[in-house]
């Protein structure tokens, strides 16, 4: 079998992939999409648990008591804007415009940091208003769901900062579009999860508390 190995760079694979693969697609990108598909399962479980226990809390505070929709709306706009800056970073990387790529990557990381900062502020405010993870079913499902999402955003920020550091240290390949695209896929996934969370958790009204 060893003599049948395909030599690197051989075959009609995507331009940014160095190795020929049996599918003709870069394995890294395929693996990233498979990972994101598995993440759908994870967030699906967390979102449906939240939906299952909506309005089932026996004691307050309830969602209407703590949610600050204008504040969370601004956070949503910030995360959405970060998705735009991420694709602008990719467009710059595809044009091999390293300076703009770094600038857009840094902007994306900063917007992500603002979002996480907003989440920390929100959690702190809710805690001060008497909602902890063990207060009621709403607190448990809300903190676990949004907390997991916040951790994903934080990991994304670390990935973005790593890209910037590697680029500054000249450790990215000349065509940096591929690594930027991979990090971008993860970042946009975090954004689409928030699109669902914002609607399901914050905007769709919670039914009245169940009678004790």
């Amino acid at each position, binding site marked *: *079998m060893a003599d*049948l*190995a*395909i030599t690197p760079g*051989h*075959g*009609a*694979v*995507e331009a940014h992939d160095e190795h*020929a693969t*049996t*599918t*003709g*697609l870069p394995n890294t*990108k*395929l693996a990233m*999409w*498979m990972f*994101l*598909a*598995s*993440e*759908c*399962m994870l*967030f*699906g*479980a967390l*979102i*449906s648990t939240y*939906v*299952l226990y909506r309005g089932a809390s026996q004691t307050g505070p309830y969602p209407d008591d703590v949610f600050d*929709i204008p504040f969370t*709306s601004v956070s*949503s*706009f910030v995360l*959405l*804007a970060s*998705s*735009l800056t*991420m*694709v*602008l970073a*990719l*467009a*710059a990387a*595809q044009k091999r415009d390293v300076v703009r790529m770094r600038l857009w990557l840094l902007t994306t990381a900063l917007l992500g940091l603002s979002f996480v900062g907003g989440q920390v502020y929100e959690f702190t405010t809710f805690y001060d208003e008497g909602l902890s993870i063990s207060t009621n079913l709403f607190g448990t499902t809300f903190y676990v769901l949004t907390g997991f999402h916040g951790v994903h955003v934080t990991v994304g920020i670390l990935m973005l900062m790593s890209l910037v550091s590697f680029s500054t240290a000249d450790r990215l390949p000349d065509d940096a579009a591929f690594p930027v*695209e991979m990090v*971008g*896929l993860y970042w*946009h*996934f975090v*954004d*689409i999860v928030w*699109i*669902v969370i*914002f*609607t399901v958790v914050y*905007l*769709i*009204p919670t039914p009245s508390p169940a009678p004790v």
Partner: protein
Amino acid sequence: MSEIESRFQEELGTRDMADPGEARAPHREHPSAKEYIRIGVILAVLTALEVATYYVDVGGALVPTLIGLSVVKFALVVMWFMHLKFDSPTYARYFLMGLAGATTLYLVVLISFGVFKVG
């Protein structure tokens, strides 16, 4: 495709696993920065509409409207920003498999727990 590559694929039977012609078909160019900005503006407008439903009473249309808006936003990000509209359909299949699997599984769970029961 070189001879050695063909032999390799025959040996592994990969021709049956994926359609090389389809996977290797040249994908469309990714959008330009201008197009990205246009999609970004559309997403911002849709988000503004979502937020507006919090202040404007739309009655029974609230939940369908919100779900519809978030589905459109979701699709725009996946198709344009994540390039599923432009890349090989194999990526879309992998992702949709996970997405459809999760949606079906959790909808069945929620229905079986009576979450969508009216009254």
